[in-house]
């Protein structure tokens, strides 16, 4: 995966951002940016993977998200956690990505035909198979439920999910209940 650093984003910024940069300590912004990416990079990558069907699309989306985080960082006033901030941007970028690639078809299940080098009860292979089946099943969920379940699987609580998606906590609960039912059904169907 391509790495994204703060310096990658320097050229081409608008004047508003440049003005903000003058008043904010650039070094601390860069440190904050690196900290967010190193803490949440894998989660953002998994989130991007749940909205894309190819490696290059996933990488593009991760890059776009990182760029958007860097652009938004000067405006971040700490009114939510860095994780919520990063996930909110990631979700916005993912929605923008989906709207640009409306025709994109996500395979319901690209069957994994890995050969098991060491068959046995609960081998590493079968765990990987289950994880892959779960990821594919999540990718197949309708968007509203996919958003909630992905954030839940990343360890966000109702309040954080509500903040990321801009919906009420009760709505998060309702969507999550339905998302779990759909996911259970999808996983059952794949057995």
């Amino acid at each position: 995966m391509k790495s994204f650093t703060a310096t990658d984003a320097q050229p081409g910024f608008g004047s508003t951002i440049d003005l903000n940069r003058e008043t904010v300590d650039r070094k601390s912004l860069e440190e904050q940016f690196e900290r967010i990416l190193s803490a949440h990079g894998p989660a953002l990558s998994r989130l991007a993977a749940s909205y894309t069907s190819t490696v290059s699309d996933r990488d593009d989306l991760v890059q776009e998200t990182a760029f958007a985080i860097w652009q938004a960082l000067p405006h971040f006033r700490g009114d939510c956690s860095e994780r919520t901030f990063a996930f909110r941007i990631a979700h916005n970028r993912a929605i923008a990505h989906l709207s640009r690639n409306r025709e994109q078809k996500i395979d319901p299940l690209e069957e994994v035909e890995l050969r098991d080098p060491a068959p046995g009860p609960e081998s590493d292979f079968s765990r990987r198979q289950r994880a892959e089946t779960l990821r594919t099943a999540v990718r197949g969920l309708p968007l509203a439920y996919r958003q909630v379940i992905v954030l839940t699987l990343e360890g966000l609580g109702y309040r954080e999910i509500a903040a990321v998606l801009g919906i009420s906590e009760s709505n998060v609960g309702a969507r999550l209940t339905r998302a779990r039912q759909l996911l259970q059904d999808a996983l059952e169907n794949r057995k």
Partner: protein
Amino acid sequence: MNADTELESWREEWQSEASIPADLHRNVERQSLQMRLLLIADTVVTIVIGGGSTAWALLSKDPGVALVAVAAWIFLAAAWIFVFTVNRRLWRPSAIDAAAFIDLSVRRCEGALKAVWFAGILFVAEIAFDLSWIYVRSNLQQSWWRWLLFGSLRTDIVWICTVVFFILLVWYRRRKSRELARLLGLREEILGD
């Protein structure tokens, strides 16, 4: 399984994705590009050899030349069947995780090693057919083995090309074997297989 246990189990599985080593990712992308270029090269060879031999047969109206065209298409068909069989499921990883990338690289390596054997056998078959055809058509009086070894500069060039081809094949096979061993080691290191 109660609801919370199920969710926790899903969470573990969801977050279990091992990160893809950058060099492995680059390697897979480079191989994908090479596979596309090879496919284009195979298509060009098919058009040139198949089309050329067919045109030659049609223009000459000689049954012997028609035999060459038929043989050329048989060899080409065998090559394409092999390519499609081996390349099946080698175009992209089955998932976006380290396991799938390593698995794809391992399968590509195994495919390349099979291709070495196939290329060797196909080359021998083609050379055997071509030399037999030339020998029969030349209507020579000398014995075939004497013609093969000392017949002409043309047969000497064929032998030199054969030697060079097999040296390259052995070199490529060793390279791919080393790569396969490295990948299997990497798989063990990353995934604990």
